[in-house]
């Protein structure tokens, strides 16, 4: 009986090599997540309808400028609280680099927003004013994307006269 030959099928796939001593090669890694905003979902739904939602503690009445379902101070549940669309720059920075997926957007400006009616802040992008045109205390107002991405970038801030 003839001897059977076992062989892996040959393909045209190969390695992208950077070096051979030591061997350094490219290895790709990618995945999709089925991500839930869970209890924070109404916030992101709010952005899509031009509303900025914070949360208010049902016990101590503390208002969070970035929502959370339970109060950090006393552990009580919070309720949704609509925030004003106008605030002030608490701090800011213009970034000339970023994570790889954001490099194309550089330079961009990050801003911590202070609201008159909230006890904590909100992190956002500031559009239309870079490092030399803005300072701590500058009045800014919210704008919303027309076509929502259902992520935090659906809201951004601009100078009040912008």
């Amino acid at each position: 009986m003839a001897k059977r030959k076992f062989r892996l099928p040959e393909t045209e796939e190969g390695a992208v090599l950077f070096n051979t001593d030591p061997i350094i090669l490219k290895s790709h890694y990618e995945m999709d997540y089925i991500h839930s905003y869970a209890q924070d979902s109404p916030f992101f739904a709010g952005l899509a309808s031009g509303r900025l939602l914070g949360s208010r503690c049902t016990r101590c009445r503390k208002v969070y400028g970035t929502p959370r379902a339970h109060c950090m101070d006393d552990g009580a549940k919070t309720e949704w609280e609509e925030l004003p669309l106008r605030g002030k720059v608490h701090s800011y920075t213009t970034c000339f680099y970023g994570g790889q997926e954001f490099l194309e957007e550089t330079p961009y400006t990050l801003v911590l927003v202070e609201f008159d009616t909230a006890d904590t802040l909100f992190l956002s992008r500031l559009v239309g004013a870079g490092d030399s045109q803005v300072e701590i205390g500058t009045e800014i107002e919210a704008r919303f994307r027309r076509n929502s991405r259902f992520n935090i970038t659906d809201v951004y801030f601009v100078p009040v006269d912008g």
Partner: protein
Amino acid sequence: MRPVFMVSGGITKFSKASPDKDFRYMVKEAFEYSLEDVPGLTVDQIDGSVCSYFSDHFTRQLKAGAMVQDYLGLCPKPSIRVEGGGATGGLCLQTAWAEVASGRMDIAVAFGFETMSRVNTWKGNEFIALASDTNFDYPLGGFYTGYYAMMAKRHMHEFGTTVEQFAMVAIKNHRNAVHNPYAQSPMELSIDDVRSSAMVATPLTMLDICTMSDGAAVAILASEEAASRLTDRPIKISGVGAGTDTMRLADRPHGSVLMLPHESEEEYKHLSWPGVHSFRGARAAAKAAYRMGGIEHPVEELDFIELHDAYTSSEVQTYEDLGLCRYGEGGAFIEGGHPALEGKIPVNPSGGLLACGHPVGATGLMQAVFAFWQLQETMAKHLGNDKLQVKDAKRGAIHSHAGTGTYITVTTMERGF
């Protein structure tokens, strides 16, 4: 709790990329070094280990700690991995301390590593930023330096701190590193060099920021009985403190200062704290470590500090959190030369993260090793010169810090001989 001593340590030279050695090999190198330093210690005497690495993304290998454990020949002894961002090394050291303090182990190895060169710098920044709130913060830029830059701006606004003062931290730490063969970027800098390097996130330039690196570090801790058997220069882990703060900068409170024993409420009655200008977790960690270590006046009672200078600005902020000066005086503190090698309290005599590099899981243990050598007065033996040896160093502190101060450890160490 029983007293715990550090009996040995080892580090690899941190570098931007070490493709010749994987994480197991790097830890092995640091481990061998630490074993050679205490000839009486053999692997069979070790009761177990605690492993420190920050990111499974960088390693591209889950349970990498298990692979180090077998590579070092420590199986089937117990081991656990701890993780807390940039503070992972400090948390690892404190966990190993707890293993010995509790009596569970007589000799425990704390080992840490990170291999960050496996992705490019900007992908690395993405990985690091995944350690910020991925719903509310990450999608805005995926960039931790941006968060620190906002903290720095607010510190400047509150207290009048200047970018030149931040630059002086880079000058000091890179200059110290000239005498440290383990440092990857020893250099003499001017304020102009720092300010004219590429702007990364206003006000921080490339030279205000540490470098992602590959590297490993090991610290070996022991009970009093085991330590006295192994070395005539044991270093006591005298104070252990840790603190935390909110993941999102936006959530930080604006309240009153958590006081240290040498401060008075009067001096801070107008200060809203911590806001985004200070690190509440560092203050909490320092307070606990000082209390346990019996330290009332840190500048007078500590001979040096190795602190987490991922950014020049965060070093200035941390002077204040650790009580080396009052809140608001951090800029003047560096400008006055107080944290210099010849100053009131040398800070980062090794060159710190800015000059040595920051392979995250190894960093906090590197600080322990440098502090250990300082207190043993063996810097000359390990560095080949005594330029960085703080004369007559009897007591020091190390400070490990995770992104925007979310996890922080402060550990005080002192001579046990």
